[in-house]
């Protein structure tokens, strides 16, 4: 396996638990960071292949697969029939016999067609085979939002999968992490699901050249503060940062709220240590997620706090996810549906009041 050596050599570039947003260097778009990760992986290991509906379209899966077919050939980068369940099983079987498939989907809603293979098979085969078989499979999709995406093209279903043993679930929020987590996912010997967010794809940020990995299961502080812990991932965390900026731009200096903002990056496994450490310090925790609040990431972390450090709480745990309602398609209804920075700021202010 060339993976282990190559990645260990470049570990010095990994910035686990540091403030990656403050690092200076080459700036790349989110999409280009992902594209670079896939190209590096394809270049490094002949066992890696990339597939998905439209990976060789002119739009190249939002640009993520741009030029990959031309560079690495149609045998290793290929468009697929629509068969989501069948292709997930085919990827699982290929992974079990030594390949490293990266199966890209436009939206996580299509994962639902493949639940039999994801949940009944890929996640459990290593266990059911008593460790004799590995399933190094990456499945990637971008959560949609807006412009009529509606109930079937904008679902953030990570919460549904959180209860499945054997899976890893990643939710990057920066170009740096998008590349580093993709490389870690491909290097990992387990099925890894990556939930990207469509609204993050236009951002740019510091992205080192070459191979580096972001450790799966390590959260990171995006901001440090004392009054409240805000924990979440992906686009929800961007809204939280915007909410904090809004609070502190509008308040007079004496009333400034300072927060520990924790970017989970991986929701399975969960970096429990960082969440508990920060909550013990601040005594307040707000959990934010792009998915439904009920039974998902928000609920799990709320329970974690209740089980581990309830005595440190100065305010009840709060969570901001989606209401227990399908995503509406229309613009006006969407405005009521999604959490906004304004609504989040009001909750933070109330908690710290």
């Amino acid at each position, binding site marked *: 396996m060339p993976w282990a050596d190559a990645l260990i050599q470049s570990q010095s570039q990994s910035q686990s638990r540091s403030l990656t947003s403050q690092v200076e260097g080459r700036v790349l778009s989110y999409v280009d960071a992902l594209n670079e990760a896939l190209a590096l992986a394809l270049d490094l290991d002949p066992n890696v292949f990339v597939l998905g509906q439209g990976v060789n379209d002119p739009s190249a899966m939002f640009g993520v697969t741009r030029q990959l077919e031309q560079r690495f050939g149609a045998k290793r980068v290929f468009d697929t029939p629509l068969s989501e369940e069948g292709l997930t099983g085919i990827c699982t079987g290929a992974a*079990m016999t030594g390949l490293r498939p990266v199966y890209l989907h436009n939206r996580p809603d299509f994962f639902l067609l493949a639940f039999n293979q994801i949940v009944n098979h890929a996640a459990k085969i290593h266990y059911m085979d008593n460790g004799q078989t590995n399933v190094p499979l990456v499945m990637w999709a971008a959560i949609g939002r807006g412009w009529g995406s509606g109930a079937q093209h904008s679902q953030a279903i990570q919460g549904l999968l959180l209860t499945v043993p054997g899976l890893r679930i990643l939710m990057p929020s920066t170009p740096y992490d998008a590349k580093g987590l993709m490389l870690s996912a491909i290097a990992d010997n387990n099925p890894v699901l990556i939930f990207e967010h469509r609204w993050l794809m236009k951002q740019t940020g510091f992205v080192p050249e070459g191979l580096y990995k972001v450790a799966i299961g390590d959260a990171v502080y995006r901001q440090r503060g004392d009054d409240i812990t805000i924990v979440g991932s992906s686009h929800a965390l961007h809204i939280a940062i915007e909410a904090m900026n809004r609070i502190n731009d509008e308040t007079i200096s004496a009333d400034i709220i300072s927060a520990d903002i924790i970017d989970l990056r991986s929701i399975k496994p969960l970096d429990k240590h960082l969440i508990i450490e920060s909550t013990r310090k601040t005594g307040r925790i707000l959990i934010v997620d792009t998915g439904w609040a009920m039974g998902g990431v928000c609920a799990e972390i709320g329970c974690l706090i209740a089980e581990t450090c309830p005595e440190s709480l100065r305010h009840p745990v709060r969570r901001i996810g989606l209401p227990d309602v399908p995503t509406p398609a229309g613009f006006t209804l969407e405005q009521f549906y999604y959490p906004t920075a304004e609504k989040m700021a009001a909750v933070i202010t109330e908690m710290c009041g």
Partner: protein
Amino acid sequence: MTKYRYQGTGYAAWASVLDQYPPAHLLALFFQMLRIRRVEEAIESRYHEDEMKTPIHLVIGQEASAVGVCGLLSSRDLVYCGHRTHGVYLAKGGDLNAMLSEFYCRANGCVGSKGGSMHLLDKSVGMAGSSAIVAGIVPIATGAALTAYMRNESWVSTVFFGDAATEEGALWESLNFAALKRLPIIYVCENNYFSVCTPLSQRQPEVDIFRKAESFGLVSTVVDGTNVLAVHDAMTKALNRARSGQGPSFIETRAYRWRGHGGAGDDSSSGYRDPDEVKLWQEHCPVESFSKFLTQHNILQGSRRQAMETRIDEEVNAAFASAISSLPPTEVDLYKHVYSE
């Protein structure tokens, strides 16, 4: 009323080509079928003890299919199957001790008591996987064939499944992809006419299963699933296609499930099928019809048959003793292998 009758023609047509098969190979095919039959009977006879705390799906009456197919494969070729695992596992060379230990929920079971009878595995001989979700293994086996194709390697993937698997979408998704990429895979549909207690006629219109596969662009055929040479012959052709880059094949084997879907004994008295139907199929026993044919042609003698019976009996008794005396797993084992390092 009997609904499903034997449609084959027995071994008569094979007499003229018998000299094409080395006698040792014919005897090996017979031995494998006999061994599977005796293992299944032994499992069945002890199942009431409730010490094998696992569902069983006996393959009695259908032995020729797994043996005819696996008799042509090497240990580098990978085989996958559904929940009716016993015959395929043994025909591919799977370790009997490890199989029975798995049934007895022992730590030295073939998958450490984490899979049970519906998830037998022996990677050392290419028995690569099975799934208790009907048709769930079909795309996985297809993915293995994709690996052989991507690496330009000469091994092939073979997958066994029942007639009901052809009612699942993922099977047809797999056939479509395999035909599209010309993957080195052989799909073996073991049509035993029943899905648990539901006859084929209540589940599918009267279109031959192999014809449906043919319409997906696979070279497809149907054979007498009680006749090991018929299966063997179809597999020889399919294997040549797979190994020479000509793509996937589909073989429908028709044989009857003598026992119930799961558990011990024939359950036909419960009314979902005619007990006479079972009796009619028992006249076309895969083991005894081949035994008779080989005996007629002086390839199998009574003394050799008896020696085989003795050898199998000793092996099976020793395997049960080994399983029963093996240790169960510990609580520590529960948490092992959820994730790969």
